């Protein structure tokens, strides 16, 4: 009896999680808020909270949570992103599997090799499809852009232009992320 109910709870959780993954509007809403990525976990998205360490020696370690904010440096272009940064500070145990505006790509023990930026979780592709539709907040960051975006070089700097939204790609660790910028 007990095990049956716990199994069904597990199932329900799994279903909720899957549902959460498929719910695009939710993610879009977060994106529209500009930096609500930190809330994604509460919605049951399949966000990673940690991963296995790949080395045991950590000589001259400095505060690794700094990495979580590395990507946020350029984010500091609007008030929205200040809060975004704070979100990251509190959640620096997470990789952003969901590839929202959140920037927690760099994590305590993480190697970043296994983030999903080139070929993310299949469901995440649906999430990103909404990027161009939503008016992106300047300074917010996504880990991928829609395939319809065009690579454009202006004054030697590479951009991804997606309609009226311009992204400037940058590396945070080995993760490529895209900062929403004003049209050059």
């Amino acid at each position, binding site marked *: 009896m007990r095990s049956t109910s716990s199994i069904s709870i597990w199932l329900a959780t799994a279903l909720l*999680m899957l549902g959460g993954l498929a719910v695009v509007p939710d993610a879009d809403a977060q994106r529209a808020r500009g930096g609500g990525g930190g809330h994604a*976990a509460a919605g*049951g*998205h*399949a*966000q*990673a*909270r*940690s*991963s*296995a*360490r*790949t*080395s*045991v*020696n950590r*000589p*001259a*370690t*400095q*505060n690794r*949570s*700094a*990495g979580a*904010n*590395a*990507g*946020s*440096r*350029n984010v500091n272009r609007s008030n929205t992103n*200040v809060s975004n940064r*704070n979100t990251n*500070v509190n959640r620096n145990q*997470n*990789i952003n*599997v969901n590839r929202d505006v959140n920037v927690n790509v*760099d994590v*305590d*023990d*993480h*190697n*970043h*090799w*296994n*983030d*999903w*930026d*080139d*070929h*993310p979780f299949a469901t995440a592709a649906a999430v990103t499809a909404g990027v161009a539709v939503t008016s992106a907040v300047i300074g917010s960051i996504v880990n991928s852009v829609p395939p319809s975006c065009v*690579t454009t*070089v202006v004054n030697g700097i*590479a951009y991804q232009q997606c309609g009226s939204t311009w992204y400037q*790609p*940058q*590396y*945070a*660790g*080995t993760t*490529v992320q895209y900062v929403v910028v004003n049209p050059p």
Partner: protein
Amino acid sequence: MKRHRARGLRLLTALLLVLPLSLTAADQAAKKKKAAPAATASATAVDPDAIAALDRMGQALHKLQQFQLVSDASTDVVLDSGQKIEVDGQVTYRVQRPNRMFVEVKSDRRLRQLFYDGNTLTVYSPRLKYYASVDNVGQSLGELAIAARDSYGIEFPLADLFFWGTEHVSKDAIKSAIYVGPGTLDGEAIDQYAFRQDGADWQLWLSKATALPQKLVITTLDDPAMPEYSARLRWNTSATADAKTFTFTPPDDAKRIEIVPIGVAVVETGEGK
């Protein structure tokens, strides 16, 4: 006289009263002693032979002037739900001491190449066609691994390979070291060791012939789901490479972008708080 006897009696009574108590205490202490060793021995025992094996491996690694290493590894990623997802990947290292290195990291989810020619570190995504380069990132490969991590958030896979056998390793971190026993990996004779330190349990399979690590498993203890990293290492110590291997030449369609330094972000975080 009478008074003396009374005092003696009182003393005796006092002793009688105290004795059973102290006996019980001693008894309990003895019992504790019996129970304790089993628990603490496994947690604190550091077998000097296991530490010596680490030293041998460190020396063997340090002696390699050049090598190619292919590592098949699986990494557990823990979702917020606690569910573990395993991500498989392959890392290829080409190394020429003291300071040249090429790394390719390939998984179903990601492909990256890193070049270090002794001066410039370049990270390149062949799929996304973006690359970023930075200069002055350490004199040795160990320094490179530390600087890349601390300054740019680039974590080299199997970074331990560049730390073992150098001053960058602190053996004090090891709380337990045991020799598991001999064995074979794909026909090669090995010795297996297991270590414990804060936040991680790890195991090494060292070649009896070369003392080079053939397998590494790290169990991360910080997360209750205890994600595991497991890497099989295949060495080619006679492989040679020319300078081109370590110098990045951007393909025509590759675009240079910036890499965000971590140091600056640290300052901003302080202000943000």
